[in-house]
């Protein structure tokens, strides 16, 4: 356990589903995605030297949850006003307060997202990164580590393709970038 403590550091974010729980850990040279199911854990390792891209996509889950909580709060509030029995009155007040609290928490936690990590062989989701702020923090944490493992990105690799290049959904590049890593230039490969 002491060795595990030195090796891994817990990253922000977690996700709990009905039968599983997701968490991200930072290792010395890789990212560890842990999925706990029942009495077992499953691991996926993404080595920094293999990570090609981190993709964060905003979702509407926060807005949907806001609407649900707001409707629940209104419904429970109306029931609170309609019922005079003190016991049920207190019950509905508690539920109304809970709905308002959840609405507030959901709104304050910020936009929701889904995050994917892309390697040469897969594009894998990271379920524990469900909030854009958390995903941003984790990405900011990982970026220098990945750059340390792979080297810095050259600005010319991100230059837009010339107008004469094939359309956006074509599968071949017209001029492959030159990778200056001490080896002879090579053509790009398809994923």
């Amino acid at each position, binding site marked *: *356990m002491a060795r*595990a403590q030195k090796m*891994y550091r*817990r990253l922000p974010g977690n996700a709990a589903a009905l039968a599983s729980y997701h*968490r991200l*850990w930072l290792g010395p040279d890789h990212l*560890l995605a*842990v999925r*706990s199911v029942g*009495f*077992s*854990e*499953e*691991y*996926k*390792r993404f080595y920094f*030297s*293999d*990570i*090609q*891209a*981190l*993709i*964060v*996509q*905003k979702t509407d889950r926060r807005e949907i949850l806001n609407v649900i909580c707001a409707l629940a709060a209104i419904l429970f509030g109306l029931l609170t006003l309609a019922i005079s029995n003190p016991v049920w009155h207190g019950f509905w007040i508690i539920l109304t307060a809970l709905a308002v609290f959840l609405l507030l928490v959901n709104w304050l936690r910020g936009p929701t997202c*889904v995050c*994917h990590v*892309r*390697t*040469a062989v897969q*594009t894998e989701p990271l379920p524990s990164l469900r909030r854009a702020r958390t995903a*941003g923090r984790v*990405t900011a944490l990982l*970026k220098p580590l990945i*750059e340390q493992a*792979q*080297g*810095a*990105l*050259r600005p010319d*690799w*991100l*230059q*837009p*393709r010339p107008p004469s290049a094939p359309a*956006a*959904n074509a*599968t*071949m*590049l017209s001029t492959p*970038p030159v*990778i200056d*890593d001490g080896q002879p230039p*090579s*053509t*790009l*490969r*398809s*994923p």
Partner: protein
Amino acid sequence: MYVVTCTRCGFVLDESRFNQPDWRDCPSCQALLRVEVFPALFKEAAPAQSGHVLVTEGEASCFYHPHKKATRPCDACGRFLCALCDVEFNDLHLCPSCLDSGRKKGHLSNLDNRRTLYDSLALTLALTPLTVILWPFTLITAPAALFISIRHWKTPSSVVPRSKARFVLAILFALIQIGGWGIGFWSLIRS
């Protein structure tokens, strides 16, 4: 080719959307995305080595391919390996047999992709039957929890930091339950 697609609709994204500080929309589905790309996206994988054919009689040959030239010994068993058999892992050069046996025996924790959490199982067995309806089952679950805790005390647990607290609690609760049954049976016999 370095193709990065939208994770919602699969549309190929152009370079102007990579490594931007703000959200950029997908031209197809308007999903808001933040894409961080790294040099690995643009690099071609090194070609796989198949090993050089043995040309000189005095040269060492691979243990698994006698017609191929040995390039280095296995760091675990010392057998000579050709370039094809040489598996670089965790800064070690291993033969496929040692890699496989290391994985099976748990010596190579980086290859573990699944582990059973016996401490959670023991604690669940110790705690779950502690209800009004299920308490008779503690006659079976308490000894089972105790057995699992003792039997798997030294079994490798999660690869991420995890204390023995669950085992300790499981043993404690199991002993209390077993003691309760003992007192109950003794009282029954006496009366």
